[in-house]
């Protein structure tokens, strides 16, 4: 049984502005920049929203609606720091978390050893977020993403609204139709038919909805019954991390000096990976030559490497593969396909969940060795046309094509 917690809080850009200018807490604040700029509103405080300012409006219109508002620029660095802090705080109480600009999700499926009941667990999550952000969120707990978000939307800050399993449809029934994130055209047609709440739509027969509105109608019907089936989309670590080292004394042609430089680079990159609790699935080594040329080599690692000792054999192998044709001025080592170094939370109820990562790694190693077109994933074309042989499509297995192995300016 899946359980999802949604916590809604003021936009992180607004929180960052309040941290920087505490005196603005009681003022109408609009985040996005100066009103002269042709930019949209990113976030607005409650006082500004009361005056009619909404996210997405042009800043000039926001100024017309609320002339007393204070306009501040979005501090992206502070927002990023707040987001990372929130992720770190939530990870201590939930195995899968997701943090957006104004809402966060946490997986409350199963049970927690330190929090015996779901309510206690939810309170712990909300408290962790409140301590980190300095603002008590409005939280909702339900069996699916949409219902949890709706519960949080209609709840008050500092409160946790819980929808028990099986009571989703009853909870949604009195709510207005515009709260459903379904097809706007379908919702407006339903409204013209006099169906003004989710319960009225949920009471319709599924076959009737499909007949009248097609797949969009089915989606709206599922939402109205609280059966969207979506959960937490867990936060994923950054995909790459790189280190660059300019060699002393300009161009270096001595292999031993290159080896020493590569060792230093490996140690600094490995230390960064270790500090961030990440492990690399692939490595790219770029040698920047005097005169602008470059040579590069890459490798998918047989096992994820998360510290200098694990990285070093692969770096040595890359150093043996790459063939610079001029003295080398700088080295650049990039770790790709980063995963959490401590592993990830396994889905105990899905057979073969632990195996999936190993298979994906095997696929990437084979593609690295034999080429990307040798391992394919079959699929069906969305619009195959009249010819039956066009029904099938082939995609590269394991995701899109990675960056080219030879960097710009490199010799073939």
């Amino acid at each position, binding site marked *: 049984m899946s359980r999802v917690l949604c916590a809604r809080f003021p936009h992180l850009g607004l929180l960052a502005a309040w941290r920087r200018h505490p005196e603005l807490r009681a003022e109408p604040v609009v985040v996005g920049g100066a009103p002269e700029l042709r930019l949209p509103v990113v976030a607005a405080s409650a006082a500004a929203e009361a005056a009619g300012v909404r996210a997405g409006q042009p800043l000039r219109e926001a100024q017309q609606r609320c002339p007393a508002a204070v306009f501040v620029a979005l501090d992206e660095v502070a927002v990023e720091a707040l987001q990372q802090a929130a992720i770190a705080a939530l990870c201590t109480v939930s195995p899968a978390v997701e943090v957006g600009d104004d809402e966060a999700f946490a997986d409350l499926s199963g049970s927690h050893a330190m929090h015996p009941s779901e309510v206690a667990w939810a309170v712990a999550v909300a408290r962790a977020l409140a301590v980190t952000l300095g603002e008590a969120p409005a939280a909702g707990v339900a069996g699916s993403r949409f219902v949890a978000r709706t519960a949080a939307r209609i709840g008050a800050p500092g409160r946790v609204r819980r929808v028990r399993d099986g009571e989703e449809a009853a909870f949604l029934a009195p709510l207005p139709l515009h709260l459903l994130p379904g097809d706007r055209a379908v919702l407006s047609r339903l409204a013209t038919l006099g169906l003004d709440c989710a319960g009225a739509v949920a009471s319709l027969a599924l076959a009737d909805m499909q007949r009248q509105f097609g797949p969009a109608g089915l989606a709206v019907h599922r939402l109205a019954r609280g059966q969207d089936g979506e959960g937490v989309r867990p936060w994923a670590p950054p995909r790459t991390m790189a280190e660059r080292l300019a060699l002393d004394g300009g161009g270096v042609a001595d292999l031993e000096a290159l080896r020493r430089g590569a060792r230093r680079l490996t140690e600094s990159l490995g230390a960064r990976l270790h500090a961030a609790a990440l492990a690399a699935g692939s490595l790219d080594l770029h040698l920047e030559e005097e005169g602008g040329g470059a040579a590069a080599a890459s490798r998918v690692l047989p096992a994820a490497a998360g510290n200098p000792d694990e990285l070093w054999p692969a770096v040595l192998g890359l150093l043996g593969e790459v063939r610079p044709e001029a003295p080398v001025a700088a080295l650049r080592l990039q770790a790709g396909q980063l995963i959490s170094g401590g592993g990830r939370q396994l889905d105990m109820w899905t057979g073969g969940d632990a*195996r999936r990562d190993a298979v994906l790694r*095997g*696929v990437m190693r084979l593609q690295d060795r034999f080429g990307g077109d040798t*391992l394919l*994933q*079959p699929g069906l074309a969305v619009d195959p046309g009249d010819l039956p*042989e066009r029904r*099938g499509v082939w995609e590269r297995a394991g995701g899109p094509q990675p960056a080219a192995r030879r960097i710009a300016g490199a010799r073939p």
Partner: protein
Amino acid sequence: MATSSSLAEAISALRRRYGDAAVRRGDDPVPAGVWATGLPVLDTTLTGGGLPLGRIAVLAGQRPGGPTGRLTLLQALLAIASRSMQVAYVDLPGTLDPGYLADLGADLRSCLVVRPPEAALGQGLAMARTLVRAGVPWVGVALGAGLGARARTWEHPLTALGEAAWSTRAVVCFSAPAPLAAPLAYASSLTLGCTPLGWHEAHGDVVGLRVHLDVLKSKVGAPGASSAALVRYPRPHAVGDVVGLPTLLPQQHGEGRRGVAPRRGTGDSPASGLSAAGEVPSPGKTAAG
């Protein structure tokens, strides 16, 4: 008597310490888990009720040149397996059609298709081995014609694939044309011969292929079992499947294995839709394999 008693005790102690498979008598059946295919006609024919785990099974075409149903059968098995696990398919002939696979009921998201460079079998087997080692529990390998002459080049990868399958308990199923190459015939733990009996027609249209299935070799049980199956092709309003046919009489089966009892009937059901004995499949249906 005392000797046999102490021997029994020793065997019992060894089995307790090292597992039941550590010591076995020569006439004991080889313990092997099976993957139940879900096709009654196959599960009742195969020893143990399915394809053996950790071993190489071969669907061998029994007629050189011409459709034998082995490829369709392999793809039908792949489709069944894909509904419950990750599967890989080594497509050496390069003829796999995703649409056809979907019509057989496959979950395409669980399918990986391996097409080695220049259709080199050795590389294809090495890639299959890597996938098996990585944890893919079901691998199908489709072979084309003319591989026997280069058998020595893929003998070693085939052995390595067999060892990987054994250590991970994966199902490895080949589809190979006649004559079976010597290394594959040797490595196979279960060889299922596919002999075409004739097209299956309904309303003047070819809708399937009737195939006789023989267990030609089995290291996990007694060979010799046989059955007849109808490999029904997917059609616009029907998925493809494999269903059983009435068992052949021995004398009819012995005559070239092409005929079935000449039962007349109308309709689409396997039992009533059989055509006359001795019907030879005509070219033109590519999916039969």
